[in-house]
């Protein structure tokens, strides 16, 4: 017997998934031949050397062999690390025994690290000094002492990272979660070390953050927002069952997305604050405020650029959508190569003021104080030094932002105040 209502539902369902043909809307919105875009992205990735087995068609197993080799190296490193921890725990030295193997590792760090943080001496600087010492073949006692101190610091860091991992494992009450964590420990350790090395390279920030560097975040949990874990759902697409797949293959999915979203909210300040808290420093994420300089008399519009890890992009976008009503949304896939070009342009634009400030110092040379004042140049040596220092810090900061932005997806969020009527309805 025919059921008109059901027929209607079935007809509607067919319409919902109706194939989209080459003609009509697809061409109108420029969406034709998505496979070509995908192919371009894939080729760009191959050229950039970011991916992966397909990069060299002649040597098919090369990528897999490399992965196996890398895994082997990782396992060997873990074994060495564990052996090192065991050795140090058996033979504590006066300089590094504080906090080893204790639950309160977050509170403890070595005296050497403490001194380093207190003195404000950057790790980058001490590393540079060590390198210089090495290059000059200085074989005296001072060099040995410094090398030993550096080794102690590295050991402390490794030990405390391990302590934090053990602490996290102890907190896991669910057996399955603990198993998952155990599987992911190498990735987490790798992430932590990568972060540490980046913080060291950050230079001026590293000195101030020295203490933080040596204090693992005991509250940090490995969860679904971790980029590596977030990509695990993709494993079956590699032709592997999920449990057989190597999550590390998926942890480096390099595609980037640029999105623009306009949301209407009842409380702009609260939304702005919530947005500011989305980026997580451990993934190198950060936000930038975009001031509305074009029209100061316009309605209050706050604009924020969130630079998010690709694996957390959709999660962040979902949270933004949940904050209010989406007025407009656009997105486009970006490639690391294109992003690098944009980042360099960005760096050039944003370091230009600092370069101009440095130029004023150069211009001030050879002039009298009266002439400098007349030309609005730094008058005395202290002022010139201050200008140079400020310019240098600015350039370093801008370059750091540039470096980070090259690996992150970007969400440009505009927040608008919802009309009164909408707020009342809500």
């Amino acid at each position, binding site marked *: 017997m025919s059921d008109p209502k059901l027929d209607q539902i079935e007809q509607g369902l067919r319409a919902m998934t*109706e194939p989209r043909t080459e003609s009509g809307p697809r061409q109108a919105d420029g969406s034709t031949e998505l496979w070509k875009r995908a192919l371009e*992205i894939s080729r760009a990735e191959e050229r950039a050397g970011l991916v992966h087995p*397909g990069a060299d*068609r002649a040597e*098919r197993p090369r990528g897999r062999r490399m992965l196996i080799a890398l895994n082997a190296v990782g396992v060997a490193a873990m074994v060495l690390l564990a052996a090192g921890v065991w050795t140090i725990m058996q033979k504590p030295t006066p300089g590094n025994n504080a906090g080893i193997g204790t639950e309160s590792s977050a509170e403890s760090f070595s005296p050497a690290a403490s001194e380093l943080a207190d003195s404000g001496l950057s790790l980058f600087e001490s590393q540079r000094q060590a390198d210089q010492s090495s290059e000059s073949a200085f074989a005296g006692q001072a060099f040995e002492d410094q090398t030993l101190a550096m080794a102690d610091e590295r050991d402390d860091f490794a030990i405390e990272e391990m302590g934090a991992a053990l602490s996290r494992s102890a907190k896991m009450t669910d057996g399955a979660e603990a198993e998952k964590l155990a599987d992911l420990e190498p990735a987490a350790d790798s992430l932590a070390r990568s972060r540490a090395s980046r913080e060291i390279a950050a230079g001026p920030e590293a000195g101030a953050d020295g203490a933080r560097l040596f204090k693992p975040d005991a509250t940090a949990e490995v969860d679904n927002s971790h980029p590596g874990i977030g990509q695990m*759902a993709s494993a*079956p697409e590699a032709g592997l069952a999920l449990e057989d797949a190597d999550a590390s293959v998926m942890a480096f999915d390099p595609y980037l997305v640029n999105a623009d979203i306009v949301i209407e909210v009842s409380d702009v300040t609260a939304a702005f604050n919530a947005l500011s808290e989305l980026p997580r420093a451990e993934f190198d994420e950060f936000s930038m405020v975009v001031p509305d300089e074009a029209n100061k008399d316009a309605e209050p519009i706050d604009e924020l650029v969130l630079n998010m890890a690709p694996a957390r992009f*959709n*999660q962040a976008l979902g949270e933004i*959508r949940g904050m209010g009503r989406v007025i407009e949304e656009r997105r486009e896939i970006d490639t690391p190569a294109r992003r690098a070009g944009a980042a360099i342009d960005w760096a050039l634009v944003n370091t230009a003021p600092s370069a101009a400030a440095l130029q004023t110092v150069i211009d001030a040379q050879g002039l009298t104080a009266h002439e400098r004042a007349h030309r609005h140049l730094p008058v005395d040596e202290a002022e010139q030094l201050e200008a140079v220092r400020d310019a240098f810090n600015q350039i370093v900061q801008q370059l750091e932002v540039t470096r980070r932005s090259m690996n992150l997806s970007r969400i440009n969020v505009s927040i608008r105040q919802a009309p009164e009527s909408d707020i009342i309805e809500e």
Partner: protein
Amino acid sequence: MNDQARPHLETPDSGDDGPLSDERLLALFVSGEDEALGELARRYEGLLLGLCTGMLGDRALAMEAVQETWLRVIRHSRTYDGRASVKTWVYQIAMNRCRDLGRARSSSKNRERVHHDRLEDARRAHVIPTASSIDPKLEAAVGALEEHQRETVILCYHRGLTHRQAAEVLGVPMGTIKSRLNKALEKLRESLGTTGVAPGRGIEA
């Protein structure tokens, strides 16, 4: 579609004039023939875009899902092992992308409202033609179904797949597909103000 515009894929063993199989096209792509991927895309891109639009209710997201599907097909083409047909494999990847994008979106408080709002937003922005025959109420009702029911109903009414192929894509037996589909239709009828779905209605093997 203009068949004359299609590139001719010359292969050593393709003596007949019949169309190459999906598996053969994928093999050609792996061996360096990019146009073989283009031919695969011509067969499935429109279907996938329709499927993903139905799954996500958002054309922009659907386009992203399809593009990512091709990206993953390209990346993993070498590891395709032939256990499932290429068609099923491609659809499985597309469904995975839809699930990922859909889950990210469902983190917001009210999924049904967001689903409907986004559809309206997209229409307002002319992303989806206003002349579309999609019923917004039905769209919202489908969006409110449980994930496995929504997937089942979308796949089963998608023109590109038989119910047996839908079962392969979802990795479940035909019996499960039938029961899920019945429950989903029943829920849709309830949501849309009617009751009593005839048992087995809409099932075609």
